[in-house]
């Protein structure tokens, strides 16, 4: 535990040295902080209606204005960050865990299993994500869990393929051969010896994947196929703003800017993490 702690601080220090990485770290830190403490920092109740104050332009009492039901936009933006992370984190980590397991099995197991899993990965990847998401939402109905499921299902292959490639390159390295010669089981080799060598690359991938998921959740909520009202979500803000774009344009800005900011933050952080964890990956996105 102590060892991984110091490794983490080395990585964080590396990220903080890079100006864009530091910026990313600050933005992500702010988003995570405001999401965790959302209930305490919101100036108003994010779902409390206040009809006399409806459709007010940004002012000192409502920094980002109010919507057609008189709800405070800033409060909804802050609460929306919590919803975005509630979708993105479980989806990305779930996909990473399953992709990692399947990928390692594909890379280490017998050839037929590898072929089968690769076909599975290629098939899942052949669905355009949003179209697949729409088909699933149409069939089982919109909810937070549906989005998490769709994201997990569509991004497992990305993690799986990377984990497989990494496993294949490690497979014949000396320390793995030595383990095998000593009679270590497959679970032990994969879990204790392969995993620590693969997880770094996948963590970078996950950091870069979070903004995609946030955008997908916002997109589906914008279409009215994501989280259900009155739950505040950045996409729902965009939806309300779009419906009354001439009367309450500040909703579009209030919903759009956090998405762009979050995307920028996680992308900067991810790129910087990548350079620290594995400089070889730098060439391609």
């Amino acid at each position, binding site marked *: 535990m102590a060892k991984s702690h110091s490794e983490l601080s080395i990585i964080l220090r590396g990220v903080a040295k890079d100006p864009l990485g530091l910026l990313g770290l600050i933005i992500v830190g702010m988003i995570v902080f405001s999401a965790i403490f959302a209930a305490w920092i919101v100036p108003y109740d994010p779902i409390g209606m206040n009809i006399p104050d409806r459709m007010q332009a940004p002012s000192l009492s409502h920094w980002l204005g109010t919507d057609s039901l008189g709800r405070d936009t800033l409060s909804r933006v802050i609460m929306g960050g919590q919803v975005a992370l509630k979708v993105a984190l479980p989806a990305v980590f779930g996909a990473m865990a399953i992709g990692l397991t399947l990928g390692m099995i594909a890379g280490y197991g017998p050839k037929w299993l590898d072929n089968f899993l690769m076909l599975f990965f290629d*098939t899942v990847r052949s*669905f355009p994500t949003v*179209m697949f998401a729409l088909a699933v939402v149409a069939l089982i109905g919109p909810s937070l869990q549906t989005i998490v499921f769709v994201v997990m299902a569509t991004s497992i292959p990305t993690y799986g393929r990377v984990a497989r490639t990494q496993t294949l390159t490690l497979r014949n390295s000396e320390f793995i051969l030595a383990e095998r010669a000593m009679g270590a089981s497959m679970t032990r080799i994969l879990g204790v010896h392969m995993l620590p060598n693969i997880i770094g690359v996948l963590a970078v991938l996950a950091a870069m994947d979070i903004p995609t998921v946030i955008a997908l959740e916002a997109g589906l909520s914008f279409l009215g196929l994501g989280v259900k009202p009155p739950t505040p979500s950045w996409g729902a803000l965009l939806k309300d703003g779009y419906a009354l774009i001439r009367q309450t*344009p500040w909703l579009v800005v209030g919903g759009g800017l956090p998405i762009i900011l979050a*995307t920028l933050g996680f992308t900067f952080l991810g790129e910087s993490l990548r350079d620290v964890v594995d400089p070889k990956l730098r060439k391609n996105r």
Partner: protein
Amino acid sequence: MFIYIVKRFALAALVLIVAVTAMFLMIRAVPGDPVSIMLGPRATPELKASLIAQMALDQPIWKQLLIYYGDLLQGDLGVDVFSGRSVADIVFQQLPYTIEMISLSVLWSATLGIALGAYAAAHPNTIIDRVAAALSVSLVAAPAFVVALLALLIFAVKLQWFPAIGAGEGFWGRLNHLVLPSFAIGLSWVGYIARLVRASMLEVMGENHIRTARAFGISERRIVMSYALRIAILPVVTVIGVGMGFLLSSAVFTEIVFARPGLGKLVIDSITTRNYPIVMGAVLVSTGLFVVSTALADLINAILDPRARSAD
């Protein structure tokens, strides 16, 4: 090469078959009988009975699947339950709008991206290179539908430079309606392509044949334009082919934002009216489009770069 082509298309076909089967089973796996789900709460008993006969739901499941494949091979995607029109007709009527929007987006973003990337590579570590690099990272981060909404707000609602909704009439009208949507879809690609071209350009510029060309006294401008750039833009082809799924996803949102006709608008409208045959038809067509374009990108890559053929 021939074997590679056959293999690649066999894989594409296999992937399509698995995808279609998965989609087919997904509809059947949903609790409740498929007819009520497909027709929604508005179904009358007569409509249900005719759909059961039409979809061969009284047959065993493997037979249903075979019938479904048979229909697909004949280009039959089923029938719209409300209007009775062929789903294939409806989908292919909307498809051109989506294709023209995606094509224009790719065209402008690839042109600008390649120019930016080539310029940055020819003048590495200058201010313009740095600005281009920072710009590319930031642009890549902007999701198309957010850009679309902000562009709609600024350029259509506030400034009123461009129309806000529809697809327009006549060549100029259509082009005018395409400006904002293709701006929104293409924006994130400019930065991505610029980074890609810059990296591959720097690689190519270090190669022997470029050095030889320099030794012959050929002008730097000509070297960049006619020797280096030709090779450096190859990865762009692959990336666009593989990015087709991403482009289609952006198109769905952009069509909604600008109320444009197209595949995305068709799907969303059909979901709201619970018109499942059209949803499935459109999803299948776009999946097919994606699989074919990925395979084509791989093929073009293999033709241009023999090393890619043996990989994997």
